[in-house]
């Protein structure tokens, strides 16, 4: 009696047909209700393993959010879902209220204003630092416009500004492949800034950094919040403590606790799975 059920499901229209709905993935980012990122009931499984298990998470416009959690808690998978690298089995992901991230591909999402810094720094090693920034700059991404692109004064100034901001003003001419590990991380953040995204997803920004470099990174990220929404995934608790206003703890693919660092640290469940180790 499958067909009967199907017919009933079809006939029972307490909602409009999907085709009548307006296309969700167009227009500007709408943040009138506060959050800029909505993840709702997102589930991702790989070969039966649930990397994300009904994860629900909201990021407010302009906030700096730290996401922590033990290995395998689903932090990177969450970023993959937001940036369109992984499609969830279930659930919804929205950028503002109007843009349905699940209907957009990786490039569309990047162009709409979600930038990501990967865990392993990936810059273009055989381009100069300034060229790395130039390539990341927001603007048309078409083939023909790239062929005829000119570098105007305002672009140059923007590149110089970002070079200054990430502390690489003296390294502009260097090949990106010759930078130190920490400098590459900053260059990547600089590339994110050139994209001028609404949301910056930053995956383990201080891995392998010295203490001094860490301090500078913390300062850089706090400066960026407000103008952009910044989501930082990090292992280093000391670093998280130094920048965090609001912390989300992930565990086994869903949110375990959320709140200020003190609240989270005093939560017995968190202590059990993560901080207590």
């Amino acid at each position, binding site marked *: 009696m499958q067909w009967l059920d199907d017919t009933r499901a079809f006939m029972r229209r307490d909602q409009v047909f999907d085709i009548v709905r307006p296309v969700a993935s167009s227009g500007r980012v709408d943040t009138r209700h506060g959050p800029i990122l909505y993840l709702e009931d997102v589930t991702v499984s790989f070969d039966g393993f649930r990397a994300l298990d009904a994860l629900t998470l909201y990021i407010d416009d302009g906030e700096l959010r730290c996401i922590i959690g033990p290995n395998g808690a689903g932090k990177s998978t969450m970023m993959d879902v937001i940036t369109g690298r992984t499609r969830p089995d279930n659930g919804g992901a929205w950028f503002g209220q109007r843009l349905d991230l699940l209907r957009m591909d990786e490039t569309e999402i990047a*162009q709409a204003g979600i930038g990501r810094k990967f865990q392993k720094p990936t810059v273009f090693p055989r*381009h100069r630092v300034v060229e790395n920034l130039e390539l990341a700059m927001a603007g048309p991404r078409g083939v023909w416009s790239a062929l005829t692109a000119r570098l105007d004064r305002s672009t140059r100034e923007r590149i110089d500004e970002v070079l200054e901001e990430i502390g690489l003003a003296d390294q502009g001419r260097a090949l990106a492949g010759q930078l130190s590990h920490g400098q590459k991380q900053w260059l990547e953040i600089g590339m994110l800034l050139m994209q001028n995204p609404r949301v910056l997803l930053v995956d383990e920004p201080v891995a392998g950094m010295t203490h001094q470099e860490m301090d500078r990174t913390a300062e850089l990220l706090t400066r960026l919040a407000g103008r952009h929404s910044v989501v930082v995934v990090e292992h280093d608790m000391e670093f998280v403590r130094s920048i965090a206003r609001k912390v989300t703890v992930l565990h086994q693919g869903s949110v375990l606790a959320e709140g200020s660092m003190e609240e989270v640290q005093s939560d017995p469940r968190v202590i059990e799975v993560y901080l207590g180790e």
Partner: protein
Amino acid sequence: MTVKMTPSGSATDLIPLAAHRRILHGDLGGKILLGLMAALIVVVPILNLAVPSDSPMHISTYAVTLMGRYLCFALLALSLDLVWGYCGILSLGHGAFFALGGYAMGMYLMRQIGDRGVYGDPVLPDFMVFLGWEELPWYWLGFDQFWFAALMVLAVPGTLGFVFGWLAFRSRVTGVYLSIISQAMTYALMLAFFRNEMGFGGNNGLTDFKDILGFSISAPSTRVALFVASALALALSYLICRAIVRSRLGRVVTAVRDAEPRTRSIGYRTDRYKVWVWTVSAMLAGLAGALYVPQVGIINPSEFSPLNSIEAVVWVAVGGRGTLFGAALGGALVNYAQTLLTAWLAELWLFVLGGLFVAVTLFFPRGLVGLLRRREGS
């Protein structure tokens, strides 16, 4: 290369303002290549046509044609370097585009024969009469016009390149897999062109050309004109490639070569860039083939042979991948060496070529250009 540090200048000065501004800025090799082409265009016609043939300064028509062929190979190498050196796509099938350009030109030359063929048919080429065909296949229509043939020289390889690239790059076929399917493409075309039913002369291909644009194809002046056309084509194509490489598009394409996922993550549709560069490269290879055919006087399916495409890769590697002028140099030099060697050791040539490739890969991965630069640096 060292960069002069000027404390006041901004580092953004290093990015070219626009692709066409000061296109040869800092490109010594390119200046030499273009200077050489200009010199050849002036000197070779004089030495061949004006200097009497008993003078030691005289260049024989045979030598002019031979040099013209080297320039065509240099152009093929240039087109291959654009995709391999700058975009990281190792094509093992570029000979297919070369041969298609050659066939388009060959079809024009066949129709120029008119009723001077063995069978004297005013329209049908000899091989069609021999096969008992009654009329010209539709795809031969229009090739009696030079402008149409010239258009097809670019359009046919370009279309094949576009379709192939569209299918391959959109499906994210990269690396070795792409090389293999490009090789399969040229092999499949070779088998197809061997068939008589295809209407391209089968095994024998197209030959017995009489004249081009009304000039006898074997006349020394025509040969010199073809040589000059090849030199001009090489110079012009070099400038086009250089403009591409210096534009932002060029920087995106090199970024794709070095870190494709990253390029995608900052919002570039890398497949479109690859298709674009691949198509341009295919058209340049077609142009090379079209200039090659009237100079050698024949085009047959063996031009599609995978071996030819692999040889072209060796030229680029020997000359210096990712330098454009180095690739052109490699294309000309390796073929010159082949001409010298096959005169005494014909059967050894393939071993020499293979050995050369191994030696280049192992000992000087940046090719001749890299070798020269290192010497200059030390």
